[in-house]
């Protein structure tokens, strides 16, 4: 096969990321304990450059290359750039986490880069095979990351659960893909779409395949009833890993859903719309209600993720351009909020002690008014209270849902977000109204402090001027 050079240009973020990840892997093997920061610095540089490359490709025309397995479009460029940014933030927080645990862990960054590469592949996949390839690269890296804390029983248990359930879900997805292949005779997303439109009647095997694919997607999102792994994995994994799992992969899962359900199975939208309605209503209900009962911050955020996924799915099921761009906005802004929320846990942690219970947030306003304020912004943003970005995410999703005459669904969604508001403002209550259990001042690296401040201020700034990002999200889909 003769592949023109220009095709490789479209792959430049992935190629660059892959080469750098390999280089860092080698460097990591040779540097001593004292030079561990080298791999961290290299990783961050890699991400900066990759983000710039992706950002510059924002206006490049859509093109399908490499024999129909890889697609570049503006949506991919935007999602990739935002994943790079989120991962960068995540690495800053992770470094602080590892420093407080004694010593940097190079493998975290290498695995993180490979996981990021997997997400890139998922975003740009144009064939069932590529999607699966990207998904497995991401998942395998994540399984290993969860297991990095090998002496911790909870960590190993979480990794095991994640792996077993993840493998099951991958199997489901693969099974669904095989049925799809059987029904349409192609792995290429565009050809599948064309075959479906040409079909007069939808065969049974197609609907079966679709169901399995939706199950696989729901698992990756953590939507109810395929959410069982989320709280345990979030809770058991080291916080640095939790914040990685809880943020960027949601953006990738959104992209995968767009490629699979919208681009290739768009003509079956009537069928998957109903499935997504059930998934999203259940996620909203269960996530918001169970989160109230949590005493661990990580578990609370895990259930909160589930409820946010419910909201995100609402945007996708609307099946309109406005809905997709709302869901995209939701995914990106949620990732930004989520890393901020988990970063606060890292910020409060001290050597040998992880501040992952809600009580650890007591009296934060007395200990550090500034970081209490940042957490306040993040919590109100997750609750969807203006003037934070979480409000516009909800607003645009609701707008898309009401636009397709599903007002009842919008009312269900807002009703559950009232319930959800309770556990977010409970965190604010703990920080502002309760007395601190210890008045130790916060000790964190300056770069960690700066990153959290930027993170919180970004959530606020996007809440006051959301227009730019909203416009960008709808532009890349147009």
């Amino acid at each position: 096969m003769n592949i023109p050079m220009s095709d490789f240009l479209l792959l430049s973020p992935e190629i660059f990321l892959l080469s750098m990840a390999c280089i860092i892997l080698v460097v990591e093997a040779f540097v001593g304990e004292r030079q561990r920061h080298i791999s961290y610095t290299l990783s961050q540089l890699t991400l900066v450059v990759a983000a710039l490359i992706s950002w510059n490709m924002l206006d490049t025309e859509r093109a399908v290359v490499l024999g129909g397995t890889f697609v570049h479009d503006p949506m991919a460029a935007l999602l990739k750039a935002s994943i790079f940014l989120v991962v960068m933030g995540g690495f800053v927080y992770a470094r602080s986490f590892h420093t407080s645990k004694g010593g940097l862990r190079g493998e975290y960054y290498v695995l993180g880069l490979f996981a990021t590469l997997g997400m890139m592949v998922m975003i740009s996949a144009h064939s069932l095979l590529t999607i699966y390839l990207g998904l497995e690269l991401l998942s395998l890296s994540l399984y290993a990351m969860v297991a990095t804390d090998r002496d911790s029983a909870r960590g190993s248990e979480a990794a095991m659960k994640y792996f077993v359930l993840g493998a099951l879900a991958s199997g489901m997805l693969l099974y669904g893909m095989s049925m799809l292949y059987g029904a349409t005779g192609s792995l290429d997303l565009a050809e599948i779409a064309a075959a479906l439109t040409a079909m007069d009647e939808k065969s049974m095997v197609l609907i079966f395949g679709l169901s399995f694919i939706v199950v696989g997607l729901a698992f990756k999102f953590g939507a109810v009833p395929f959410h069982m792994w989320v709280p345990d994995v979030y809770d058991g994994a080291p916080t640095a890993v939790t914040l990685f799992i809880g943020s960027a992969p949601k953006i990738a899962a959104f992209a995968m859903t767009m490629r699979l359900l919208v681009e290739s199975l768009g003509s079956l939208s009537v069928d998957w719309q109903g499935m997504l309605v059930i998934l999203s209503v259940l996620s909203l209900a269960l996530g918001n209600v169970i989160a109230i009962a949590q005493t661990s911050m990580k578990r609370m955020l895990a259930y909160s993720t589930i409820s946010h996924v419910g909201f995100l799915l609402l945007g996708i099921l609307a099946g309109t351009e406005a809905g997709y761009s709302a869901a995209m906005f939701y995914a990106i802004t949620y990732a930004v909020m989520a890393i901020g929320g988990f970063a606060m846990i890292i910020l409060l942690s001290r050597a040998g002690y992880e501040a992952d219970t809600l009580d650890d947030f007591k009296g934060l306003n007395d200990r550090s008014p500034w970081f209490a304020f940042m957490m306040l912004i993040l919590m109100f943003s997750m609750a969807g209270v203006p003037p934070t970005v979480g409000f516009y995410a909800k607003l645009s999703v609701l707008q898309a849902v009401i636009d397709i005459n599903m007002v009842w669904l919008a009312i269900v969604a807002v009703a559950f977000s009232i319930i959800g508001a309770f556990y977010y403002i409970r965190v604010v209550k703990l920080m502002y109204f309760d007395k601190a259990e210890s008045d130790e001042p916060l000790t964190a690296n300056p770069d960690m402090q700066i990153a959290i401040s930027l993170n919180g201020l970004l959530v606020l700034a996007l809440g006051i001027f959301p227009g730019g990002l909203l416009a960008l999200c709808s532009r890349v889909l147009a």
Partner: protein
Amino acid sequence: MMDMSILSWLIWLPIGGGVALLVMDTLGNTACRQTALGISIVTFVLSTLLYTHFDAATALMQFQENIPWIGAFSANYHLGVDGISMPLIILTTFTTVLVVLAGWQVIRNKTAQYMAAFLIMEGLMNGVFAALDGVLFYVFWEAMLIPMFLIIGVWGGPNRVYATIKFFLYTFLGSVFMLVALIYMYLKSGSFSILDFHLLPLTMTEQVLIFIAFLMAFAVKVPMWPVHTWLPDAHVEAPTGGSVILAAIMLKIGGYGFLRFSLPITPDASHALDWLIIGMSLIAIVYIGFVALVQQDMKKLIAYSSIAHMGFVTMGIFLVFTLLDNSGSMQGASLGMEGGIIQMISHGFISGALFLCVGVLYDRMHSRQINDYGGVVNTMPVFAAFMVLFAMANSGLPGTSGFVGEFMVILASFKANFWFAFLAATTLILGAAYSLWMVKRVVFGDIANDNVRQLEDVNAREFVILASLAVVVLLFGLWPAPLIDVMHASVDNLLAHVSVSKLPAGETGVALLNAVRP
């Protein structure tokens, strides 16, 4: 018109000042207090420019600012005031000055944050009154909850956490349904402009649903019976300043919402369902009046009295349809609505003043129980004079601003229905009973105990606060014309608007109207 961005200044100056206070936290409490006072006074002076440059002859929005904000929703940063919102903005800026003064000595814990919260609150409330864009309005409306949540929770009384979470969730519950309604109308009209919503034709079913969504938001805020239960808790636990802002301004936002949204956007549904609002208002007036009578806690008593008085506001506003049907004249209908608006403003001053009075006592005795007091007049004669005056105003004594609004609403209800008027007028008796009985037990009589014996009379700061409120209460009581004049054109315009049906041709809404009328 002069400086076109005066409304923006009124919003962003206090918010910016509040943020600055948070940053200069370390400078010490005195500096923070002085800065807060300076900013609030400047804001108040700026807001008086609204009054002096206001053109009372037109019902159009004035001091308009309109710049694109969020392209994706075609939402604009659109501000403007008319005769209904302008007085409320001045009420806000005026009250904030008093609130900053009231917290001067009492608040020693996190003073900078306290002052900042009130300044930010002021900016947001001004934003609510000035916003002419649905998204902008909703942003200010919801953002307002955050500082208030903290004010009650951080500086409040012993049961503050329960009270503030109840307050937050109640208000949040009401407003999210309003959001759904706003989005629905945006999708129909293609813009979030409130003025476009006013002109949007809607079928009866749509109107009824939108009306109910708005009702949930505004009824909680007013608060109307039966969703009033958050208010006594919030008032009792809030610090004095928080109670004042709640009673004087936040409750008015509910009434303002009816005038700006419910009536003009859903006139036919408002017409069909006015019995519901009037019924709820009458229950609030009579039943809550009785509840106030038996309260032992002064703040709770004033809180319940606020609910009863706000019942007057909502009744006055929704009497217009009966009046229009009965007489067909705009003149009579405007009486009820203007009475309702005047009652809002006047209640802002009076309830604020009463909460400040309780605050003065509480700062000295650390008790709000009526039983702990008695004979305060012997040790605090100046204070007693003020408290008696405000209690009289609260019960609607002629010559005070409390009389004007109540009188207009009762007069209007007489024209509408004798029984409305009969029930509404009982509030004059009940209001006098609970207000004066409280005064009798707290202020008059022999000195009850040693704590009262050691009380010191108001200091200069407290005197200034109470005296300025007393002046306003008497001024609008004796000469309400300046207030009525500015709102006249806007009220007439609103009435003309609601008297025209918005239903699409062919649908009269009669079937539904008959179905929902009891």
